[in-house]
C-alpha cells in the first residue's frame, strides 16, 4: 500500500471525528456565516479524510477503540468503531460534504445561513458521536443532541407551518428519547452497567427484558418514523430548506435506525422471539405499502420525496424478521445496512435536485413542472439515477440491497416479505415516474424558469453517481461491513 495510505491509517482519527465538527459549529455560531462559509469545505474535507482513515484502520486491524481523555469503561466514555460504524461515518462525511457545497450556493446572501452552519456542525458532530458511542447513556445524550440540532434546522424556514412542523418533530423526538431513557434506567437497575460490550448476553427472556425491548424499540421507532408513527416526518422533511431535507431524510433517521440495529443484535439478542421480529417486519411492510400509496397522492414535489422516505424506511425494518433465522441472517444484515447506505445517497441526491428544480421553476407543484427536463437536463438525469436506486433496479446500490434481502427471504423461507418488496418496488416506480413523465412534457405557455447555480445540480449529480456506484463496488463495502459484524450470534 502506498505511503500516503499508511500515514492515513496510522493516525488516531476518532477524536477528530468528534472534535472538528463541534469546534466548527462553535466558531460558526460565534463569528457568523461569512467565516463559516470559508471554513466549511476544509472542515468537512477533513471529516471525510478522518472517516476514510478510520475505515482503513478497521479494515486492516479490526474494530478500533478509543478511551476519551484516557478514561476507559466503566466510568469513562469509551468509543468503539467496527465495520458498521466506519460505513455509517463514511456515509455521513460524504453526504455532509456534498450538502456543504450545495448549501454554499443555496444560502448565498440568505439570512438563514447564520443558523444553518452552526446547526449543521452540531448535527454532524452529534451523529458521529452516536455512531462511535458504546454505552447506553452516552447514546441517549447523542440522540438528544442530534434531535435538538435537527429540529433547529427545521425551524430555519420562516412561517407558522415550519414552526408547527418543528414543534411536532421536537415533541416526537423528545417522546422517543424519553422512552429510550426509561429503558436505559431499567437496564442499569437490573445489571448495573451501561457498556454495550459488558451487557451483551445478559438480558434474559422475561417480563423485564420484554419491557426494556418494547420501550427502547418504540422510542427509536418514533425517531425513525416507522409506520404508523411517521406523522411528524413529512411536514418536517418536506417543509425544510432543500439541504436540510437532504440531511434529515438521508442521515438523521439512519442514526436512530443504527442504534436500534445495535441494540437488537447485541443487547436484545438473547430475549428476542419470533413474533416480535415478525411484528416489526409487519410494520415495515405497512410503511412500504402505505407510504408509497401516500407518495402517489402528493402534489408537491418535496412532499412526494418525503413520503417516499416513509416508504423506504420500511425496507430497513424487514431486516429484523429476515435475520431471525440462521440461514439468510448474514444476507439480511448486509441487505438492511446496504439499503440504509444506498437510500441515504439516493435520497440526499433526490432532495437536493428537487431543491434545484423548485428553485428553477419557482414552485414545487408536480403538475406544473412540464419542461423542466429541457431547462435542467442534468437535474432530471440526476433525479432519474436516484430513482433507479430507490426502485431497486440494477446496477444501483438499491438493487444490491434488495437482492440481498430477497436472498435472505428465500433462504429462510419467508416468501411473504418477497411479495411486499416486489409490490413496494412497483409502487415506487409509479410515484417516481409521475415526476419523470411530467418533466418531459412540453413547457407550458405561462411558465418561466430561473437558472439555478451550477453547484446545486452538480453536487446532487455526484451523490446520485455514488448511489449507482454502490451497486458496482458492493464487494469492498461488504468486506468493510463484515468487520466485527454480529450476525453469527442471532440464531434464536
Amino acid at each position: 500500500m502506498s505511503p500516503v495510505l499508511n500515514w492515513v491509517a496510522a493516525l488516531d482519527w476518532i477524536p477528530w471525528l468528534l472534535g472538528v465538527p463541534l469546534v466548527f459549529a462553535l466558531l460558526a455560531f460565534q463569528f457568523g456565516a461569512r467565516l463559516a462559509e470559508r471554513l466549511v469545505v476544509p472542515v468537512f474535507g477533513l471529516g471525510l479524510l478522518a472517516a476514510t482513515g478510520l475505515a482503513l484502520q478497521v479494515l486492516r486491524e479490526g474494530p478500533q477503540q478509543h478511551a476519551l481523555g484516557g478514561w476507559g469503561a466503566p466510568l469513562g466514555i469509551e468509543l468503539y468503531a467496527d465495520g458498521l460504524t466506519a460505513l455509517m461515518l463514511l456515509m455521513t462525511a460524504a453526504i455532509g460534504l456534498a450538502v456543504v457545497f450545495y448549501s454554499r450556493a443555496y444560502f448565498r446572501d440568505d439570512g438563514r445561513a447564520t443558523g444553518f452552519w452552526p446547526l449543521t456542525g452540531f448535527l454532524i458532530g452529534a451523529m458521529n458521536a452516536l455512531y462511535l458511542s458504546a454505552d447506553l447513556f452516552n447514546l441517549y445524550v447523542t440522540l438528544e443532541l442530534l434531535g435538538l440540532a435537527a429540529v433547529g434546522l427545521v425551524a430555519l424556514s420562516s412561517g407558522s407551518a415550519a414552526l408547527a412542523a418543528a414543534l411536532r418533530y421536537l415533541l416526537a423526538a423528545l417522546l422517543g428519547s424519553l422512552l429510550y431513557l426509561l429503558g436505559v434506567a431499567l437496564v442499569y437497575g437490573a445489571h448495573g452497567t451501561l457498556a454495550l460490550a459488558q451487557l451483551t448476553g445478559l438480558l434474559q427472556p422475561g417480563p423485564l427484558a420484554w419491557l426494556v425491548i418494547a420501550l427502547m424499540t418504540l422510542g427509536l421507532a418514533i425517531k425513525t418514523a416507522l409506520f404508523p408513527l411517521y406523522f411528524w416526518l413529512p411536514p418536517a422533511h418536506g417543509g425544510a430548506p432543500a439541504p436540510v431535507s437532504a440531511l434529515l431524510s438521508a442521515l438523521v433517521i439512519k442514526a436512530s435506525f443504527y442504534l436500534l440495529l445495535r441494540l437488537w443484535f447485541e443487547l436484545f439478542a438473547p430475549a428476542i422471539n419470533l413474533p416480535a421480529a415478525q411484528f416489526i417486519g409487519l410494520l415495515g411492510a405497512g410503511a412500504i405499502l402505505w407510504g408509497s400509496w401516500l407518495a402517489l397522492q402528493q402534489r408537491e414535489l418535496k412532499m412526494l420525496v418525503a413520503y417516499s422516505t416513509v416508504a423506504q424506511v420500511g425496507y430497513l425494518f424487514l431486516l429484523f424478521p429476515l435475520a431471525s433465522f440462521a440461514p439468510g441472517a448474514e444476507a439480511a444484515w448486509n441487505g438492511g445496512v446496504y439499503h440504509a447506505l444506498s437510500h441515504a445517497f439516493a435520497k440526499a441526491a433526490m432532495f437536493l435536485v428537487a431543491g434545484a428544480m423548485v428553485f428553477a421553476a419557482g414552485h414545487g407543484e408536480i403538475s406544473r413542472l412540464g419542461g423542466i427536463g429541457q431547462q435542467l437536463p442534468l437535474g432530471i438525469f440526476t433525479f432519474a439515477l436516484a430513482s433507479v436506486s430507490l426502485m431497486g433496479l440494477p446496477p444501483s446500490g438499491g438493487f444490491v440491497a434488495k437482492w440481498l434481502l430477497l436472498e435472505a427471504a428465500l433462504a429462510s423461507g419467508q416468501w411473504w416479505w418477497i411479495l411486499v418488496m416486489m409490490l413496494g418496488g412497483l409502487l415506487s416506480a409509479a410515484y417516481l415516474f409521475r415526476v419523470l413523465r411530467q418533466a418531459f412534457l412540453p413547457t407550458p405557455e405561462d411558465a418561466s424558469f430561473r437558472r439555478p447555480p451550477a453547484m446545486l445540480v452538480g453536487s446532487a449529480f455526484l451523490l446520485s453517481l455514488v448511489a449507482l456506484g454502490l451497486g458496482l463496488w458492493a464487494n469492498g463495502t461488504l468486506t468493510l461491513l463484515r468487520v466485527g459484524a454480529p450476525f453469527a450470534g442471532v440464531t434464536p
Partner: protein
Amino acid sequence: MTPGLLYAITGALLFCLGLYGLLLHTHLLRKVLAFNLMGSGCFLVLVGLAQRGGQVDPVPHALVLTGIVVAVSATAFALMLVRQLYVETGRATLPGEGDDP
C-alpha cells in the same frame, strides 16, 4: 419494599402521567410540562432502582445531572418555539389539534 423501589415505582407512575399529558393535552405549554414530568419520572427510576443493598450508587447521580441539563435545554428550546408560534398565529396549539379550553 425498600425505599429505592418505592422511588422507582413513583417514578414509573410519574412517567405514565407525563405520557398521558403529552399525548392527550392540546395546549403546547401543557405538553412541555408533561415532557418534564416524564423526564423527572425517568430520573427517579434511574436513581431508585440502582440503590441495592442500602448502598448508594454514584453513577446514576452523574447520569441524572447530565439528563437534567439535556431536559433544561430541550425545555428552553421548546418554549422558544411555542412562543414564536404564538406570536405568528395567536394560538398555543398545533394546527389541526383544536383549541384548548
